[in-house]
């Protein structure tokens, strides 16, 4: 095919301009800012200023620890739940499929602020419906907001509720692309359904599951709204402080852009490292 530079760039330029200004340049700029002292006028180049502070900052380690803790517990639980949802929604035995799909997929359209407000109210200490229901079955009420462990659990429950269905949609699409005859052959060979799941379904779903895991990890890495609104600015006492909140606090409350950029690039570095590990796990076995 002959090249069509002029025509192609006429279609491409409007998008490329926006992409360059609001995505590519900020990626570079943020990296540069992370090496600058930004609370002096003019900003000056000071390579160790922010990164040096970051390495010795207990607030950073606290946010990093909380973020990674949420990551290693919430993401696997949610993905497992999403697989269960998708497999069961795909079962030919299921009646009233539409109702079940609605129940699991509806949270996908619910905004972070709306659901944070609901979760905050549902889990409040004395008048929250969750504690009332726990009480009515004889479990004493849990102080979800004043103790670190329940507060972390609450954040994980909220995020899982919001995103499990989203992942189930992607996994369900993956399931439906597996050809029927694979299972027919296995059934003829009297392979049990459980074995079929572990030896046929899961291996064939692996690329989709890795895709979901990467998306979820990058999302959870930036977790902001839930600890901001549900546990009120990362409370109790920084117990649910995340990297996203630290970035917000440093960047937009203290207007310390250099330090906030260093935090942002730490998140990016972690995301890239985790994506690379996932891609390595995905490689074709020899």
């Amino acid at each position, binding site marked *: 095919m002959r090249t069509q530079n002029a025509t192609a760039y006429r279609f491409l330029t409007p998008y490329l301009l926006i992409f360059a200004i609001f995505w590519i340049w900020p990626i570079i700029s943020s990296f540069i800012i992370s090496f600058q002292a930004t609370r002096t006028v003019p900003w000056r180049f000071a390579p160790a200023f922010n990164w040096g502070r970051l390495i010795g900052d207990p607030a950073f380690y606290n946010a990093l620890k909380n973020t990674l803790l949420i990551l290693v517990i919430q993401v696997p639980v949610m993905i497992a739940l999403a697989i269960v949802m998708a497999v069961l929604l795909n079962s030919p035995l299921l009646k009233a499929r539409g109702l079940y799909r609605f129940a699991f997929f509806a949270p996908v359209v*619910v905004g972070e602020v709306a659901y944070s407000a609901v979760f905050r109210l549902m889990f409040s200490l004395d008048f929250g419906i969750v504690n009332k229901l726990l009480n009515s079955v004889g479990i004493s009420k849990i102080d979800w907001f004043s103790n670190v462990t329940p507060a972390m659990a609450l954040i994980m429950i909220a995020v899982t509720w919001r995103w499990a269905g989203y992942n189930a949609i992607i996994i369900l699409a993956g399931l439906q692309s597996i050809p029927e005859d694979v299972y027919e052959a296995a059934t003829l060979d009297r392979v049990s359904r459980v074995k079929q799941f572990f030896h046929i379904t899961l291996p064939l779903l692996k690329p989709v599951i890795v895709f979901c895991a990467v998306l979820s990890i990058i999302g959870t890495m930036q977790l902001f709204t839930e600890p901001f609104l549900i546990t009120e600015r990362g409370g109790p006492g920084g117990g649910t402080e995340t990297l996203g909140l630290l970035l917000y606090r440093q960047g937009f409350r203290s207007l310390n852009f250099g330090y906030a950029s260093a935090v942002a690039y730490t998140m990016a570095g972690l995301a890239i490292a985790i994506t690379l590990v996932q891609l390595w796990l995905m490689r074709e076995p020899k």
Partner: protein
Amino acid sequence: MTSRSQARLGRVIALHLFLTPLALVWLFPLWMMVVFSTMPDNGIFSPGIELLPHDNFLDNVANLQRDTNFIGAIGISVSVAVTYTVLSVLLTSMAGWALARYEFHGKGAVVAIIFGTITLPYAVVLIPQFIMVARDFALANTWIALIVPPLFNSLGVLFMRQAFSMMPAELFDAARVEGVKEWRIFLFVAMPLARPMLAALAIILFLASWNNYLWPLLINSQPGAMTAPVALGTLIGLTKVSWGGIMAGAVMLTVPMLIVFVLLQRHFIAGIAAGAVK
């Protein structure tokens, strides 16, 4: 009844016995959102267990409007989401079309840069975007600030590139032989053929804009310029605030989207399944 069909019946029952409680738990927060939005504040903060709606919704809307100009904020959110969706669909379709159907210098580089940066967290660009829009362009608290920066989203480009590259070339070549201009081929041949994909993309983009929180929170923080989620968020955590009002706001943000979801479920799911926009 044969043992085979008995075993099948057992599996059907077990499946529903497991899935029904899970579905109810999943629906519970949405149900409670509706219930809370219809209760007076002294009802929400009372010791009894209330699981059914009352009739206080309109009073709660009035309470919410007293706490913040929520109706005005909804107006901003609707206008911004509609404008953003139209512009974003147009920009990403054009770019996707160019990448799918033309050979040109730099194509490989453009695709590589888009793919190479797609997994970077959005947090990385937040600070420079803010400095640029608020300080350099002095556009904080404007519509432009809400609409233009999020247009960078590249997943739509990849989605539309995929859509256009699956179309048979003969369709477009026939038009070219007759001397139809490239932009007319794009607009009047390719775009109508891509309607299902465009619908999926538009729904996902609209939803993303409607629910967007962090960027509007940072850039449009003045009361008259806030979007609805930001306006609602300012109330959460205040002491003297109507929680019935907050829940009425949550319902107004959520229920229209749930209705759209039910009506257009197929497009919704297609958009998400293709990873159109995270």
